[in-house]
């Protein structure tokens, strides 16, 4: 179910009304209601995929409950088994087809099992909910969540785990929740406590970024397709790249803001996922601002587990590179994502090598912002052109097509127009450091939200799926 569809609006309205009904049974079972709604939300398009989600919830509940009940004995073994189970699910459903196709191609093999693996559908949101399952196990193991022994029956734990993993605002494309941040929030919620202004701000900004900016840009950036891009002039190719960079931000940041707004509507605070990433002037700053829930997950549960920066400089570099490579592969079952992650890893290593411990003290500078933005935008192409030779072909075309006349029609103007809100969005953030601007902005910010709402009504693009759904 898409957030930007009428079906979802109807679904949300019904869920919301029932959730806050002033009846004792509803107040008692608010969580169960949201679990049920989340299952409906998930199963709407392909009901069969719900089975895997249910299976994942059940297994994670059993493992985490065992960790919680076993004291220190055998806990590590249970933890390892639980994590392994999550990784196996992810590997089989997400990477099975990639591995099978690589084996079939490299060894010219053809057999029934490989063919079967190649036909496995990718369960939507699997990368997100398996990471959340791992977060639950690791947080329980490290004592970052403490349950009340008396209140924690298996049923209660099952209910909470099902809710943590399946809560519909974050289920399909995040933000990725950490158990230690979400479990303490699970409680009965009241209508009076809804932070309406925050909800409206998040939803309006989120829907604006998705429906106006991303959906309008997506029809234009569709030109980045092999072999059609070969027919564009160099300037047009660069403009398309710029447009795609704006689109991918608006699409994913928009989704995350909608998810956070919906969470607040039901009384839950989901973690921030974007913090104006295109003002970053170093790659490490970029990763503190882009897809924060993933980068902090990778930092907390993978980088630190690998030893982080505690085992010497060389090992730090290796750890960083491994984390970025796996982070890249997390995005999709294609070698282009591995290349994308590795390139980001490489740029992080170079930065760390050049600036050593002074990296965090680096002041923001314009050249740095342009460098990071340009490099990041170039690398986004790997999301669009997943065949590496096409990716290289795009750059060849930029150099080869200088003689082709530049087109400056409706598409090119549209890219500039729809990029403006994203640029403005980042500029406002920078200007907010100025106290007098901040105070003035607080007085008139309602106008900004009103304009966004107006544009949602009069300028929405053709409804499209969220880019991060595929991950």
């Amino acid at each position, binding site marked *: 179910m898409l957030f930007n569809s*009428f079906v979802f609006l109807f679904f949300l309205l019904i869920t919301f009304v029932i959730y806050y009904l002033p009846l004792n049974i509803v107040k008692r079972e608010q969580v169960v209601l949201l679990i049920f709604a989340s299952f409906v939300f998930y199963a709407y398009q392909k009901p069969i995929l719900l089975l895997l989600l249910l299976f994942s919830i059940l297994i994670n509940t059993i493992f985490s409950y065992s960790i919680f009940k076993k004291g220190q004995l055998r806990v590590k073994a249970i933890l390892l088994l639980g994590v392994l189970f999550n990784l196996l699910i992810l590997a089989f459903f997400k990477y099975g087809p990639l591995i099978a196709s690589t084996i079939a191609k490299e060894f010219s093999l053809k057999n029934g099992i490989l063919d079967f693996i190649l036909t496995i559908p990718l369960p939507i949101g699997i990368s997100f909910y398996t990471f959340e399952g791992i977060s639950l196990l690791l947080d329980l193991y490290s004592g970052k969540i403490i349950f009340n022994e008396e209140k924690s029956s298996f049923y209660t734990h099952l209910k909470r785990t099902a809710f943590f993993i399946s809560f519909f605002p974050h289920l399909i494309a995040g933000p990725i929740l950490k158990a230690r941040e979400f479990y303490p929030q699970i409680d009965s919620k009241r209508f009076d406590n809804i932070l*309406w*202004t925050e909800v*409206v701000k998040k939803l*309006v900004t989120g829907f604006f970024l998705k429906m106006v900016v991303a959906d*309008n840009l997506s*029809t234009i950036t569709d030109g980045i397709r092999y*072999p*059609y891009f*070969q*027919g564009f002039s160099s300037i047009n190719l660069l403009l398309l790249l710029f447009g795609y960079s704006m689109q991918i931000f608006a699409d994913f940041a928009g989704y995350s803001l909608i998810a956070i707004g919906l969470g607040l509507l039901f009384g839950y605070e989901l973690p921030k996922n974007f913090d104006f990433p295109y003002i970053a002037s170093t790659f490490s700053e970029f990763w503190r601002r882009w897809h924060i829930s993933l980068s902090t997950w990778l930092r907390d549960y993978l980088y630190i587990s690998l030893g982080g920066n505690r085992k010497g400089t060389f090992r730090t570099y290796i750890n960083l590179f491994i984390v970025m490579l796996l982070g890249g592969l997390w995005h999709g079952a294609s070698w282009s994502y591995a290349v994308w992650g590795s390139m980001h890893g490489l740029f992080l290593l170079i930065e760390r090598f050049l600036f050593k411990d002074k990296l965090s003290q680096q002041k923001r500078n314009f050249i740095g912002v342009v460098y990071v933005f340009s490099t990041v935008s170039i690398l986004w192409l790997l999301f669009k052109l997943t065949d590496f030779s096409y990716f290289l072909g795009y750059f060849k075309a930029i150099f*080869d*097509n200088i003689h*082709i006349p530049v087109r400056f*029609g*409706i598409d090119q*103007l*549209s890219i500039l*127009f*729809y990029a403006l809100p994203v640029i403005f969005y980042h500029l406002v953030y920078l200007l907010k450091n100025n106290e007098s601007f901040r105070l003035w902005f607080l007085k008139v*910010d*309602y*106008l900004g*939200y*009103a*304009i966004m*709402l*107006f*544009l949602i*009504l*009069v*300028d*929405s693009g*053709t*409804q499209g799926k969220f880019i991060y759904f595929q991950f």
Partner: protein
Amino acid sequence: MKKITLILISCSIMTLTYLFFLVFLPLKTNVFYTNDERTEEYIYSKKEFQIVLVGSSLSGAFEGRHLFNQPYFNLYLPYTGCCTGIEIIRLAHKYPKYLFIEVNHFDRGIDSSLIGEIFNSPLSGFKGKVAFLQKKNKFFLNLIDRIKKPVALKTNNQAPPQALYKYLLAATQKEWQSLPKANNMQIQFSHMTSTLDYLAGKGTEIVFYEVPMDSSLNSSNLLVYQRRLFEKYALKKGYPYIHTNQAGVFKTGDGVHMLEKDAERFYLFFKTQIGNIAGKNHTPLE
């Protein structure tokens, strides 16, 4: 809550102002950039179009050209074809006096997602009255059109780089050599002919036409199959059919879309053919 009220009031004022602007100072244009825009214009326009062309992007070659002495609507729909156009006319209940049908991309059938979005959306019922809901009235688009005079999507002046041209031509040749499942084509054809019978019952006169493509495709399996299907039907019903085999050879940019100079040449040929049909049938087409 005060802030939310302010947001809602400001948004309502902006929306009403924009609506006022659209109703009293509409942008007079015949340029529509997407299939949704073109379809909505056909449905919600207050004009009664006596002559309508339906087809694929190939019929885009007529965009901005003076084909008839009275206004006509070119309902060409890239990525789909005549079946979708005919279905739109049926569902919109706006029946033209003359319907020109491009046969080249009959094989693409009906674009159900376009039809669904236009006719089955909860907003469909309001689009006629609330102009800003129509895609052609999107705010930025309107703004851009006012800054820069809207220009019809012109055919290309020159072919793309050689490597790309060869790749596209080869892909097109491959596409046109293969035949879709005959059963599906028959179902599609019988659905279309029943719609045409319905339109004929409403007084619509039908003319079929082909748009020239690369000469290597003239005898391609798909084109020949479709041509035979339509010729047989046209003969049975007595509908005119405009062939292109007498028109000469045309240069394209990708195997299917003519380059500007050739499109101009074909337009002149097509005009003559219309004149002939009009002369024979004593219709007011000329």
